């Protein structure tokens, strides 16, 4: 995660905040929540395509952290990776329950279209926006195992070690899945840009 503090004052680590939180310090809990909630929410949103699911998942992640037997062990990875791991399990549970493998519902009332980067050239903006939308659709069309690694490492910029903790796999697996996912995305985007070329790759064997 790249959410850096704005001041130069020494900032408490996640683990220090967790310790204070567990001793009943509400401010530490809220600081930890505010530091980590956005990334977790976006991860759940990218994975599920649903704002209510993302909201539920974010809340459940921190409720799990409130439990005494939350299962976090600092020697097994960072708290951030641990929280993403919980979020991932909850999202997959939602997906399995409701089969929510759908495109992000940007037309729903509770979804505020994110503001894209400011660009001076409207034509370039339009082109860029279309490209971004195409990429977002392509990410959501990925199989889950590739989608989750792209969302974690490429969109949320979680480092490989934390991603490995979250996904429960070795770092090498993270790398290989990421490589494969990027290849799939490039192929998908290339097909969207060149539909005729993509169709040309199909070789009919027999007409029926």
């Amino acid at each position: 995660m790249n959410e850096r503090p704005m001041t130069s004052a020494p900032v408490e680590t996640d683990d220090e905040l967790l310790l204070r939180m567990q001793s009943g310090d509400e401010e530490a809990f809220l600081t930890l929540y505010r530091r980590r909630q956005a990334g977790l929410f976006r991860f759940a949103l990218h994975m599920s395509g649903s704002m209510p699911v993302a909201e539920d998942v974010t809340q459940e992640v921190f409720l799990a952290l409130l439990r005494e037997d939350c299962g976090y062990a600092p020697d097994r990875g960072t708290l951030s990776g641990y929280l993403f791991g919980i979020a991932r399990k909850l999202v997959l549970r939602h997906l399995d329950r409701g089969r929510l493998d759908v495109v992000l519902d940007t037309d729903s009332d509770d979804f505020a279209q994110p503001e894209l980067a400011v660009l001076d050239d409207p034509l370039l903006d339009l082109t860029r926006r279309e490209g971004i939308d195409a990429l977002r659709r392509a990410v959501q069309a990925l199989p889950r195992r590739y989608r989750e690694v792209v969302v974690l490492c490429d969109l949320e910029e979680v480092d490989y070690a934390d991603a490995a903790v979250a996904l429960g796999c070795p770092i090498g697996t993270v790398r290989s899945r990421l490589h494969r996912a990027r290849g799939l995305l490039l192929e998908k985007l290339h097909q969207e840009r060149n539909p005729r070329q993509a169709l040309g790759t199909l070789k009919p064997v027999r007409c029926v």
Partner: protein
Amino acid sequence: MNCQEFWNTIPELGDCESSRHLLECPACAARMSRHRELEAGFRAVAAGFRRVEAPPRVEARLRSAFRRQTGSESRAPSRRWIPVVTWAAAFAAMFALAAFLVRDRQPEAARPPVQRTIELAMLQPQADYDGFIPLPNSAGVAADDAADGDDVNLVRVEVPRSAMIALGLDVSADREEELVEADILLGSNGIARAVRFLD
């Protein structure tokens, strides 16, 4: 380094900037260019979602949950006394009930049985012997009582008048069913020694 080795050794997109292979291989250079475009696209998507975060109501709910939890934790030490207090109260109630029952039963147990027709009294032996009719076994009984210290009891009873007939007194036959009060002189061994009719 061939193409396969090149792609196997790049852990991240930025690490290949200085790679000599890209200068030598146009195919890999084109592929790398597409990867850089993809990386730029990821950054753009991430930037578009940068302000997306959980609604404030989530924080409010979690704050409430945290306060409930910490509140319950602060009450936890007092909860440890709940079983102790409960058992103490139970024992106190049992003790009070037992004391109440014992107190109520003791006088009842000590209370003499109610006898409608009999009054038991200690008799001064020499004082009230007048009017008594010695029963047939009174001589033997008197000898036994003398050995025991001559301690006698007087018991007042109601008996049918027919009992007077048995002792040789004159009683009308039509009144033999009536009850009449009598004192019976009992020896210390509980055997009757004499009787006195009060009517």
